[in-house]
């Protein structure tokens, strides 16, 4: 009798292992397709993975990612919650959830998800900036700065945090402080086009049109087709009374 039980247990266990392996295998294949931007096919493989093992939190997360890229935000949110149901500390699922809510402009829920992320890994500077960015999208620039400062306490050279802090400073009309932060970024990374663009905006606000124009042009040197910097350049030309040059740009945007 003991022998029969042993054989039965081994059989069940091996089936379980095979299903788990197959689930991981399909999840890996799906991830490869996802990396190759073949999202629909990737989704098929994530579903196959979940058919094998509905408890595979990675596959749920990856499915959520693929659905999010395909702009199916509601389905994506459901998938992330499935992942979180399997593993409450699954940071990638909380991160995806934050992004999916943000994409839906549901910043309140995005903020809740971002808070969970910080609880899971408070030493991750990116999570503090994520929360700060969501607060900025809600128009809470001072609250955002508090979060962003936490990221900078972890890494004072973190350029995304410096950039976001500069935006908060601009909202508070502290243009000199904002420009100083943007210059710090450009020392770290001279190709950070957003910093040039924001610097142009800050300079323009101070009436320094020549300097603002130079900043926008530097952004355009990095990315000549960037319509935001082109539009901003058009405005500074309008402010300088160069309407003809402004219209030249207007027609190309």
């Amino acid at each position, binding site marked *: 009798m003991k022998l029969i039980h042993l054989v039965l247990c081994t059989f069940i266990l091996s089936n379980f292992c095979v299903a788990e392996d197959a689930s991981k295998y399909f999840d890996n294949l799906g991830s490869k397709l996802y990396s190759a931007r073949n999202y629909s096919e990737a989704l098929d493989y994530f579903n196959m993975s979940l058919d094998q093992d509905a408890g595979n939190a990675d596959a749920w997360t990856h499915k959520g990612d693929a659905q999010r890229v395909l702009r199916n935000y509601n389905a994506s949110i459901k998938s992330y919650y499935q992942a979180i149901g399997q593993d409450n500390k699954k940071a990638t699922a909380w991160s995806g959830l934050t992004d999916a809510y943000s994409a839906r402009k549901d910043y309140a829920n995005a903020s809740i998800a971002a808070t969970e992320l910080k609880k899971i890994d408070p030493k991750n500077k990116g999570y503090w900036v994520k929360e700060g960015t969501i607060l900025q999208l809600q128009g809470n620039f001072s609250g955002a700065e508090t979060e962003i400062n936490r990221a900078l306490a972890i890494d004072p050279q973190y350029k995304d945090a410096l950039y976001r802090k500069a935006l908060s400073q601009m909202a508070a*009309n502290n243009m000199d402080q904002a420009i100083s932060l943007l210059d710090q970024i450009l020392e770290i990374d001279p190709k950070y086009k957003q910093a040039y663009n924001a610097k142009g905006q800050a300079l323009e606000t101070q009436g320094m049109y020549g300097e603002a124009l130079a900043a926008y042009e530097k952004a355009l040197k990095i990315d000549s087709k960037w319509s935001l910097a082109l539009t901003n350049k058009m*405005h500074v030309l309008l402010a300088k009374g160069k309407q003809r040059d402004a219209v030249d740009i207007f027609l190309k945007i």
Partner: protein
Amino acid sequence: MRIVTLLLVILIIASVCTAEDTDYFDWKGGKLLAAKNYTGALTYFDKAIDQDPNFINAYVHIGDTRRAQKDYNASLESYNKALQLDNKTKTAWSGMIEAYVALNNYPKASDAAAKLTAIEPTRKESWLKEGNLLQMQGLYDLAAEKYKSALDIDPQYKDALYRRAVSFMAMGNNSGAVELLDQVLAIDAKYKQAYNVKGLILEAEGKYADAQAAYNASIEIDPSWSMPRVNEIHTLFAQGKPDDAMKIFVTV
């Protein structure tokens, strides 16, 4: 005599059949072109030309196909062959304009547009096109004249009114531009571009609150259009409202 008559009839029938083959090949190529099967389409257009080397439509269609394949020089070559056969082939001039625009060669595109306008001077769209190509070269005064010709045909032609306003703005005639834009908006209150350009003119004149209102009217028509939203940022900063400006800045 009967034999001669019979031979004559056979000759006529054979000629008709050949012409029908040419039309068929061209039609078949056109179908494949529409289905984006460019290689297949070219095979049929070539067959049409083999049948009749003077078949203008096939040359035009080869030009269209080459243009769809982004082989613009080959496209222009084929349009030119069509025009050598008949200098008034509108479709060839039209295709040529598009090919030159794709090559960013606006002077040549403009020349081709002028030929098209000369062939069909009563068509308002041709004048508009010619004007737009002159605007792209910064020739705002010449462009304004072309729009005027379009408006002589149809005084309510809103695209020509709008483009003429843009030329006026470039030439510093802001009041003239606003007058034209108001005409556009009287014809079509949903013409978002007119509100946007009106906003730019008001902003250039330092009338920031009025400019903001114009941008907002444009945004109301199309909330997903980013340009008036970016424009609004500048008017908000100019009015000393950095917090409101940055609320938009972080979303664009």
